């Protein structure tokens, strides 16, 4: 009998477990997670906004563990990993493994602003437990005003959910615009307007520098760098995450800011693999799942390399305004061509360098736009096509092809 252990039940862990079971029908597979419920982090805001219950956050079938004959030790923190003895040490017990997958994800970081790390009313937004705490804070304290640090997708998800419940939010962002990783000034402006209409207030290009605490160790005011004092019932830190590797510090596994893996997602120990946020390779869901599946294949003795290093991509959907953003936001140098198209309902921007698309932003209608990622990732030369048509008329049809099994492929231009 082979023993497989997977730490973490997020996107990477669950995808790995499913693939591993398919490849190894008779092996023992044990999963261990700090989370009590396997849930989709990308949908936590739907729980916070009261749109879904805990069950509604599941991204696999209800009977996932029974169906796949996986023993799941839930609500269990891993204390450490003993790679020499090939054991995972838990709070109360240990698990032996032949092959181990570490998919422990990431933890949110709280910015080093006075009182932020010690006050009792500063929350992150990473796990269901965080969403539960925020919901409780809203309900029990009858919160009227929340201060959010960071206007990335996480910060705005929290803002959206709180606004839906009539809570006023103020969001501080160090960059000069909201969603700075995905948008330029124009596309950011469209979202900012929608959020402001819904009651959000932004402070851009400025950070918090201090705070005031009451006798219950709760932050009552956040003070910005320009001296402005913003009253709040609680604070949400949405200013980034870091790989969850603290429990590995004595494991001997090679790590820096993240757990190091080679192209086969193997760590410095031949029997230990890693996938998802803990590797620091990519912060988005599809890549985490892909890494999980590929790590499982490598663990099962089917070598497959993970080569998808392109991870600057995302989709956004707030107030029914959808957006796709991939690659560069602005041209890197003067040799780039920038194409834009703007109308009442949409904004498009493409950046091309030497015939290769390096960045795309589509706001409004994003149907049929999956080919852009393929063009950017694979550096496909479109200079021939650009002579024939408007860049925004290019579609997969320009690369249409079929293989013998009837699947689509990218052929030369047709």
């Amino acid at each position, binding site marked *: 009998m082979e023993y497989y252990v997977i730490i973490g039940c997020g996107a990477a862990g669950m995808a790995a477990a499913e693939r591993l079971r398919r490849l190894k029908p008779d092996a023992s597979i044990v999963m261990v997670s700090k989370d009590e419920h396997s849930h989709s982090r990308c949908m936590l805001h739907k729980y916070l906004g009261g749109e879904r219950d805990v069950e509604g956050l599941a991204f696999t079938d209800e009977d996932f563990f029974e169906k796949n004959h996986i023993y799941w030790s839930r609500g269990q923190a891993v204390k450490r990993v003993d790679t020499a003895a090939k054991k995972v040490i838990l709070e109360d017990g240990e698990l032996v493994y032949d092959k181990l997958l570490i998919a422990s994800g990431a933890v949110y970081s709280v910015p080093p602003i006075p009182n932020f790390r010690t006050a009792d009313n500063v929350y992150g937004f990473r796990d269901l437990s965080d969403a539960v705490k925020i919901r409780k804070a809203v309900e029990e304290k009858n919160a009227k005003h929340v201060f959010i640090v960071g206007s990335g997708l996480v910060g705005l998800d929290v803002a959206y959910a709180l606004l839906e419940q009539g809570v006023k939010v103020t969001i501080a962002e160090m960059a000069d615009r909201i969603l700075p990783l995905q948008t330029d000034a124009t596309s950011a402006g469209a979202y900012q307007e929608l959020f402001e209409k819904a009651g959000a207030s932004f402070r851009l290009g400025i950070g918090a520098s201090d705070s005031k605490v009451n006798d219950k160790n709760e932050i009552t005011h956040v003070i910005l760098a320009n001296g402005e004092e913003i009253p709040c019932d609680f604070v949400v830190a949405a200013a980034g995450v870091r790989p969850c590797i603290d429990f590995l510090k004595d494991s001997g596994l090679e790590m820096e800011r993240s757990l190091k893996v080679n192209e086969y997602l193997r760590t410095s120990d031949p029997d230990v693999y890693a996938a998802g946020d803990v590797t620091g390779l990519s912060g988005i869901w*599809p890549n985490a799942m892909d890494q999980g599946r590929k790590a499982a294949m490598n663990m099962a003795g089917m070598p497959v390399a993970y080569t998808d290093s392109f991870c600057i991509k995302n989709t956004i959907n707030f107030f029914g305004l959808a957006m796709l953003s991939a690659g560069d936001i602005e041209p890197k140098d003067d040799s780039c061509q920038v194409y834009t198209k703007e109308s009442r309902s949409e904004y498009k921007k493409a950046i091309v360098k030497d015939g290769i698309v390096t960045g795309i932003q589509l706001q409004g209608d994003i149907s049929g736009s999956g080919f852009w990622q393929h063009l950017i990732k694979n550096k496909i030369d479109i200079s021939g096509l650009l002579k024939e048509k408007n860049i925004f008329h290019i579609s997969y049809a320009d690369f249409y092809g079929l293989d013998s099994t009837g699947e689509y492929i990218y052929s030369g231009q047709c």
Partner: protein
Amino acid sequence: MKRIMIDASKCDGCKNCALACMDSHRRDGKEGVETLDFNSPMTVARNEIVCGVNGGYLPMFCRHCTEPACANSCMSGALQKDEETGHVKYDEAKCGSCFMCVMNCPYGIPKISEDRTKIIKCDFCNDRPEGPACVLACPKQAIYVEEV
């Protein structure tokens, strides 16, 4: 699994497949392509025929891929490859409207609903015994079902 195979050289762009698809997925209780309401944003085909650069028509139909990029990127579990039929099924109730599938399908197949809350994608007409409506409607056998 069964797949809708495509012989693009036979397609003459009549779009009977698109009409049949709209008719088979309508929710207004009516039947027959002649009663389709083209003013309704709900009347959407899951397939599409686009013009090729050198003339000719290119049928765009969900392949229900062996490694489906849409389902592989789904963060809600709404899109899943059915192990028995091999078809990629979409559960509207589970969908989180994140549109990762739209970004990740390299062939641009999943569409977004008019109200931006759901996606619209081929369901192989729920594997009904007579086969998908589009295939039955094609007068040229440019699309046909085959076991692959």
